């Protein structure tokens, strides 16, 4: 039996311990904001926060999550999350929107570590998140905007 905290609530999982966290979230917990995009940690659509750090849930076996704390797009909160989501909406970042949960999880984590990121910081933190619609210019802008509002 694997026990972990999900968006603040205690959860258990007693299925195949190899099951990636992604599919536990989506198929068992029915939290579908976290997306499948590649299954090999190449696209970042599955990004969640695991014990406060970004993690690609598609390659994270649930067995390794035992005792950890998982936060998904459905559960993020705090000033960084609020600033990021507001900034995303203000300039209409999403197109198809499928990758955006992962983008936002990475962006929130970036701002938690680096409240005033440079373009290079953004490249470093966000290059693991693919957007096939190529909304990158707006992602970059929204992160800068969010940083500005947190400061102000």
């Amino acid at each position, binding site marked *: 039996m694997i026990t972990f905290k999900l968006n603040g609530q205690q959860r258990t999982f007693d299925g195949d311990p190899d099951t990636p966290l992604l599919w536990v979230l989506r198929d068992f917990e029915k939290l579908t904001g976290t997306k499948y995009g590649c299954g090999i940690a190449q696209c970042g659509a599955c990004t969640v926060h695991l014990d406060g750090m970004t993690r690609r849930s598609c390659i994270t076996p649930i067995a390794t999550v035992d005792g950890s704390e998982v936060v998904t797009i459905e559960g993020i909160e705090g000033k960084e999350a609020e600033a990021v989501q507001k900034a995303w909406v203000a300039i209409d970042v999403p197109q198809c*929107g499928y990758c955006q949960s992962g983008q936002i999880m990475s962006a929130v984590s970036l701002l938690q570590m680096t409240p005033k990121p440079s373009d290079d910081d953004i490249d470093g933190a966000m290059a693991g998140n693919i957007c096939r619609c190529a909304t990158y210019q707006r992602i970059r802008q929204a992160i800068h905007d969010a940083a500005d509002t947190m400061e102000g």
Partner: protein
Amino acid sequence: MTVHSIKSTRRSFLAGAGLVIGFTLAPRMFSARAMQGVQAGGDTALSPMNAFVKIGADDTVTVLSKHIEFGQGPFTGLATIVAEELDADWSQMRAVHSPADDKVYANLAFGLQGTGGSTSIANSYEQLRKAGATARAMLVAAAAEEWKVPASEITVEKGRIKHAATSKESGFGAFASKAATKTPPAEPRLKDPKDFILIGQELPKLDTVSKTNGKAVFTLDVTADNMLYATVAHPDHFGATVKSFDDLQARKVQGVVDVRQIPQGVAVYAENTFAALKGRAALEIEWDLTKAETRSSDQLTADYEKLFAEKGLAATNNGDVEKAFSGNGVQSIEAVLAFPFLAHAPMEPLDAVFVKAVDGSVDIYTGAQFPGMDKSTAAKVLGLDPEKVRVNTQITGGSFGRKAQFGSPYMQEAAAVFAATDGNRPLKHMWTREDDIRGGYYRPMYVHKMRGAVDADGKIVGWDQSIVGQSIMAKADLDETSVEGASNLPYDIPNLRVISHNTTLVVPPLWWRSVGHTHTGFAVETFVDELLEKVGKDPVEGRLALLSKEPRHIATLKKVAEMANWGSPVPEGRQRGVAVVKSFGSYVAQIVEVSVSNEGSPRVHKVWCAVDCGIAINPNVIKAQMEGGIGYGLGAVLFDAVTLGPGGKIIQSNFHDYRSLRINEMPAVEVAVIPSGEPPTGVGEPGVPPIGPAVANAWRRLTNSPVRRLPIVNVLSA
């Protein structure tokens, strides 16, 4: 255990989640409680004014989008058009997908329901203006009756219906149900475009908020209680079929329920996605390659080039090309260009959910780009009357052409997977990224042979282009999609010949964002650039001189040159390149600034982009589509090819070897939308064609090596 004997063992998911967005109707088997998925057509409690507009008692106006929303913006664009003529307030507007109906919801450019060719706004513009105006007239008629005042004295503004003389005022909701009973005017009065209030504004997109908090329901997110999850093992050669398979190990995987052969491969059914994937990986399958494509991409290219010697199909033959090339003092240059197979790789791979109702009818939830075709295809596979199948188009994670397939081959597979069960459990079928990259329906391979003639005065007098590749429309005769952009060359060259050679492969072809322009735009715009260079002309001035009969090309090109301050000094180590392409009725010109990266490949710093797409419904959406088209096209020309290796085996499989542009590779993009009173045209595709040739032109100036083969990075590393 098989799928026919399965009993529900899992708790109803609703106990743990509160994410129910959509509802299915009685008498369907699965109650609203157990279903997450958005039903096409919207809430049935809303009052329908016509096929496109529903109004709620709460004053909300819901627009039924006959076009799929996969990021290109029809929900917002179509709702804007309706809201304009309805005099609604933007805050009350909503949008949902319409039901599947090839008549009521036909794309007026196609004759059946479908999204593609950047036609959503163009074909809907008049239709939805009328739908909005009709609804407005019905609301006014209902108010006039209720208030006992002449309809002509009623005004509507920002969602408020008013009668000044009696100081009466109301929202739409109070009259919605009564208005729905009114006879719609045959010819509603439309606004003079100069009076537009909402059209032309950068209104916030309707689907943004749900795409920033994880609440948007994509097909992959549709969940029904007691649902099965299925994946299919596919061959790694095109045209291969299952010879035999051993599912002993697969059936031992925890959570695997059943394994069945279907025409497309071997399907694994399981209690969750991971079990289905693990089960699939444990299958041992022997494939029959008798009918498979066994040539490699290199062999195909060589075979294609042999066709240049043959006559081919004449797409254009103006003047006398042979004579032009043999004229006195005429110099010619030649180039052979090779374009690879390209996968579309939308973020959300192909997927569908099937739910059978108690009356035997079936709801399908999917990203349907041709919903009517998906419906009839599924009905056929399931052995049902099409009226017993409802296609509920979901918000979709991209497509770029991938989800628009004649004959709905994906739906054939998904429906076959469902049909192989007894249908008593809902079923989700998904493709993995590997299925997607290796699944065919690519932008076909093409090879172009270009010949250009310049006379002693430096005038381009002859253009001779041969194009070899698959016909996307599966035609034996000329396929316009193979030659569009070349056969109607905008440049004024007196002797022009464009020849097409169709090839036949088992690798299935498909349109890929901007279709023929993906390769003709590259070929034309790089070659004209080389010809202009040969005669010592400036790339912008030289093009303008050749475009004397094309005023919208000229205006777009001049605008982008002004934005980039063309002719001003370029920073050390950089070069600029330009391209202008008209596609799908829209004109797009781009100028790029490029340097050589540390890895020796093109680094694109900046893109200036000017677009003329007629009346701009929402300039912000247009700019977003240009930015996205540039990023999508740039990733492909720099990095992407699906290649067949020795024996025809597909090489690439996922994003590690089928690269996508990443944020650190995205140039800064500046877009100008040219003001226009012309009818609106599309923007989903036209941003793509110019970026490749603009980069290649800058690269040639930077390195003295023309780009003859895509993707650029493969050639550099070869």
